[in-house]
């Protein structure tokens, strides 16, 4: 390490002008070293310049990165080499020799004002090269795979098929198993994150296995004013579960539903889609006995 008060000698080459490279270049330049900032793409700033906000503080990315970029360009100790690649390094610590291949820019950087007119008229569009995505191979049990393929096939030509596919899976398996979702993600070419968002957004999907029977207590206005909450308390007490949970023996899943539209029979519950109305007192516990 070179100590702060010693006389600085030589120069440093920083490879890559993303936020890390830019910061490194600035720190080095400010400590008195000559810096060559090497960047493969036509511009410096890297990924951060494309971001809106940064995690976890939610601060504005551009606001943080752009002063650094300007400073890089202004700092006399920093020499920016864009469109450049490092082809060879020889020598030893303290005395390296780097060979850089620089691609032509065809634009006089001193004169360019950055108006962008040339990009609009250029018949060849610049395309970003992306690494081919490595798709994970998902192994499903043959039975599950067949069931899933069958659902996927059904909606192959439908626009906006994700929802009905998830619905089909939810009906078929009783919930949305993670490996099936990963399989669907690969097959339909949608990110797992989007599937997860949808699965958690809508009430009809469940990410955990469910009971053999689903009890839905109507939480509509009429049922509420006619005592659905008492009904719910009774069910919670009897089944020893909270809303959205499944009993230990997997017999029942308890949930609430917005409105079953049977307001004149309030309060109502539905068990596996069968509706029971006008439930008073302990009636509701009697209803459950029919379901094993």
């Amino acid at each position, binding site marked *: 390490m070179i100590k702060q008060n010693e006389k600085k000698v030589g120069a440093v080459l920083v490879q890559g002008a993303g936020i890390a490279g830019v910061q490194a270049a600035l720190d080095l330049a400010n400590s008195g070293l000559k810096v060559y900032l090497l960047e493969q793409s036509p511009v410096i700033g890297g990924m951060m310049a494309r971001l809106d906000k940064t995690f976890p503080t939610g601060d504005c990315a551009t606001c943080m990165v752009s002063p650094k970029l300007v400073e890089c360009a202004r700092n006399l100790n920093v020499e920016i080499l864009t469109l450049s690649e490092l082809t060879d390094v020889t020598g030893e610590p303290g005395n390296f020799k780097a060979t850089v291949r620089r691609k032509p820019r065809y634009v006089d950087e001193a004169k360019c004002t950055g108006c962008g007119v040339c990009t609009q008229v250029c018949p060849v569009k610049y395309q970003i090269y992306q690494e081919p995505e490595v798709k994970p191979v998902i192994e499903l049990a043959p039975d599950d795979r067949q069931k899933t393929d069958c659902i996927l096939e059904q909606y192959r030509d439908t*626009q*906006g*098929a*994700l*929802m*009905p596919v*998830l*619905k089909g899976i939810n009906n078929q398996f009783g919930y949305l198993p993670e490996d099936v979702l990963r399989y669907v993600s690969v097959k339909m070419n949608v990110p797992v994150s989007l599937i997860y*968002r*949808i699965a958690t*957004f*809508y*009430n*009809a*999907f469940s990410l955990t296995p469910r009971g053999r029977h689903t009890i839905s207590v109507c*939480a*509509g*206005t*009429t*049922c*509420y*004013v*006619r*005592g659905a909450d*008492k009904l719910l*308390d009774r069910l919670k*007490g009897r089944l020893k579960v909270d809303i959205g949970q499944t009993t230990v023996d997997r017999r029942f899943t308890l949930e609430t*539903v*917005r*409105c*079953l*539209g*049977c*307001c*004149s*029979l*309030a309060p*109502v519950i539905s068990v596996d*889609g069968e*509706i*029971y*109305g006008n439930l*008073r*007192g302990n009636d509701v516990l009697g209803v459950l006995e029919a379901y094993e």
Partner: protein
Amino acid sequence: MNNMKKIRSGQDLDAVQRAGLEKLYPDRVKISVGMASCGLAAGARKVFDTLSQGIKQRQSNIVLAATGCLGFCRMEPLVTVHRPGKPKQVYANISPDKAEALLDAVLNEQDKEDWILCHLDREELIVSGTHHTHTCNGHGQAALSKPYQEVPFFKKQQKIVLRNCGFIDADDIDEYIGRSGYSALMKVISSMKPEYVIDQVKSSGLRGRGGGGFPTGVKWELCRKAEGDYKYVVCNADEGDPGAYMDRSVLEGDPHTVLEGMGIGAYAIGAREGIIYIRTEYPLAIEKLKRAIEQARAYGLLGENILNSGFSFDIRIVEGAGAFVCGEETSLIASIEGRPAEPVTRPPFPVQSGLWEKPTNINNVETWANVPVILARGADWYAGIGTDKSKGTKVFSLVGAITNSGLVEVPMGITLNEIIHEIGEGIPRQKKLKAIQTGGPSGGCVPASLVDMPVDYERLAEIGSIMGSGGMVVMDEDNCMVDIARYFTSFTREESCGKCTSCRDGLDVALHLLTRMTEGQADTEDMDLLDELSQTIKDASQCGLGKTAPNPILSTMKYFHEEYVSHVKDKKCTAGVCKPLFAYEIDPDACKACGKCKPDCPVAAITGEKKVPHAIIAEKCTKCGACYDICPFDAVTKV
């Protein structure tokens, strides 16, 4: 289904209509059972099975049919008996046992007088503007029962949207055509220019029945004029408001009216494809719709080259997945496209750039159901019903603390008083009317003092509520308004998609404040904060959900201010709903020491023996209300 011949001309349609009329009014005895969801919940399936077996056993030629819902939900299961040449009889509250007896009576040419709700001498056929008379030469039976028109529940109703519900078998397109179904579509396609159709809808004054009240004709015109080679019409059947179920009833009882309305709309707008977005909680409605679409296709009323006119249009169903916000148009579109249902900024409006960025016209079920009648009878006829700015009828689901609960369709401008005290026949158990909640979680509470107010879009908006989709929950003195506000806020908080901070976090804080109030921990500053917060949520949210979510809070704070004050200052809930703010007591004078309440108490908080008046140990009591519910002498009181 294979033998269904495509309908190509007016003559074809007339032939099907004649066949339909024969099915509707056969020359044999016909018994129909109301088999919509509410009927089924009341046990209509068992009644139907009993009748079906009974008919088989007795080797009778009686025709047994399943129909939709007549709307009088309190009286379900409803069974209709129709003997040729005699008035149609409607029997109420028929259990399987009663059904057996009723069948015997029918076979012996007798009536079950005690069970008759009413009879119909004739049926109004709204679409053609005529009647079907059941009696020949005025022979009816004399005063055995009230005529349909004089039953208080039906008297003030005017059924346009619900015209077929309870009268036809939704699974049989012939019966729909029998009552002049698809004649409006035929008329429109064969003799009207799209611009003229839009003109008719505009001058009829029809406004969106989903809640917004935007003029339907104007929307259609915007969509027609929008640039685009491919356009969509969408039916919003995501009836999410708790306490409103008219759309479900229409879809279960008369799905073809929606298909016909959409067909007319598609012709006027120039759309090629229709989508019905329906909530998944309505499995029966989905089943009926699917069958209706199949039948309409088989008759060539949907598909390529409809009625030999060159106009092609088809409909498919998309099921929702249980998210209240999907009722909002832009989130509905997002949901159809398979995205999380988050609203986006308008403009562009869906009529300009909607589904898959194509012009999309979205109307609600009830709006579509109005369309065929408007085109069949003409805009002037329709515009003659209702008030100055709100035309036509509106279906309300009249529920809660009301004697006659059910679906009622009334002309706009009728007063709340007429709906509640005449159609609904008042509040049961001699309780007093306290408020009427309209418009679901986006609406507000109308206090009893404003009961003489006429119901239309403008008047409801003026007093801080909305028409909404037509839920009308009647509340009596046993309902606590602070608790109601808390209930709706907890609903909207759950259902907020979370995009706008004001809605997501604002409702969370509002719910927290309201919960503190119902638990007796709030102070007066909380009330001011709640008021200010509600205003902010209203102003700063993007979509309809957030903009209207504070309505229940604001309207209850406005009209039931003293109730908030008693919760906050006196720590008392006069209605006896908020558990920490009241206690149960047994009135020793009223208590007959029968002992009924003792075994029901889950925490053994009731003392007393036989013949010794009971008392409640306040420290032990969890206020579950079991004793209050069971006491036959009303000796348990809330203080």
